């Protein structure tokens, strides 16, 4: 039985770790140089945020595990990231749509965490928020530009939205860990963020001339670790192979 605070910190750190790694997969193969640099920088920010979250998680757990230990030596079922973030990159449109859907949520939760009763969390949130804010600026502009672009870019962005929309709901599903965080004024109930998220995302999608899919089916099981998709294991195999094969490797 782990503490709810430890679980909560893993969720924050695993979100930024998994998305950060996914985004880093574009390094060197992006459509244009500027986007390559932008994606690599975004990934770097998120890996940096991961070090803060998982570093604190390791301290809270109290078993001497470092951020690196938590990132590289856990199995897929121990990860607590949202299913949305472990989705493969597919094309650039899917990558940017995934980023936009998460960035809007990320900015909102970090804003709320700035006033967390846990000082360390408030500090990490304040630091991360500066970065998440310009991530959102870029992903929002890119989604609008491509959605309201050519017939081909519009079709690709609509396909991306249709593919990812069923993963949106998990961001706002509250569970026992969230309830424990709310009780101690550490973090907000994620379901309370939906309205503000809609206010950011829906007008932007409309500006992008994209249609929000009907239905509210939600894939779940990432943030509580019960049902990760098959994609996470493949991603971790690549991400973790070096420290697992060469346990004491260092730069």
């Amino acid at each position, binding site marked *: 039985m782990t503490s709810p605070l430890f679980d909560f910190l893993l969720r924050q750190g695993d979100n930024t770790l998994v998305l950060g790694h996914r985004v880093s997969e574009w390094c060197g193969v992006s459509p244009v140089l500027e*986007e390559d*640099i932008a994606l690599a*920088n975004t990934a*770097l920010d998120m890996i940096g945020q991961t070090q803060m979250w998982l570093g604190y998680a390791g301290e809270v757990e109290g078993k001497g595990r470092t951020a690196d230990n938590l990132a590289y030596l856990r199995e897929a079922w121990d990860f607590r990231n949202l299913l949305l973030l472990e989705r493969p990159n597919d094309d650039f449109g899917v990558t940017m749509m995934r980023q936009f859907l998460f960035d809007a949520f990320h900015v909102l939760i970090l804003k709320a965490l700035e006033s967390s009763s846990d000082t360390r969390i408030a500090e990490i949130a304040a630091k991360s928020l500066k970065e998440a804010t*310009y991530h959102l600026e870029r992903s929002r502009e890119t989604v609008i530009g491509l959605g309201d672009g050519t017939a081909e870019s519009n079709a690709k962005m609509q396909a991306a939205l249709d593919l990812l929309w069923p993963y949106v709901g998990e961001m706002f599903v509250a569970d026992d860990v969230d309830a424990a965080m709310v009780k101690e004024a550490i973090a907000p109930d994620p379901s309370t963020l939906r309205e503000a998220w809609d206010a950011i995302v829906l007008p932007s999608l409309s500006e992008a001339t994209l249609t929000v899919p009907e239905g509210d089916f939600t894939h779940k099981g990432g943030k509580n670790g019960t049902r990760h998709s098959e994609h996470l294991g493949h991603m971790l195999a690549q991400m973790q192979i070096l420290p697992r094969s060469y346990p004491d490797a260092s730069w």
Partner: protein
Amino acid sequence: MQRPTTDQIWEWLDAVPDPEIPVISVVDLGIIRDVRWENDTLAVAVTPTYSGCPATSVISFDIDKALREHGLKNIRIETQISPAWTTDWLSKKGRAKLEDYGIAAPRAAGGPEHCPRCKSTDVEKISQFGSTPCKAQWRCCSCLEPFDYFKCI
């Protein structure tokens, strides 16, 4: 050895260049948050510019090395993330050096005042991200040169 004053230490640190933008010092960059003696140990608090900036560990190493070269032995470098770094902490001297080097200084308005080369105000953003996490890519529409802009955060 006589214990150097913290003013002296700040002066030494002002000679440690930023590894990515060597024309400015780590003091100009505003990342040295505190220098204090704790008995015989010198504690230096450093704040990262961006949380994932790979230069952070190099900076700590460079600071440690510079202070050792001045004869200090017991040095502790602390990472301090709060309050979060802001470009408001760039020194005036640092801002001027950035411009001379061809990097437009950050402005609250969100973009450069002018092209650092020809001073034209007719400039446009190419990308919000540049060669390091702290910079964006802009272009001058008069002299047509691309240039770095130090992002305002």
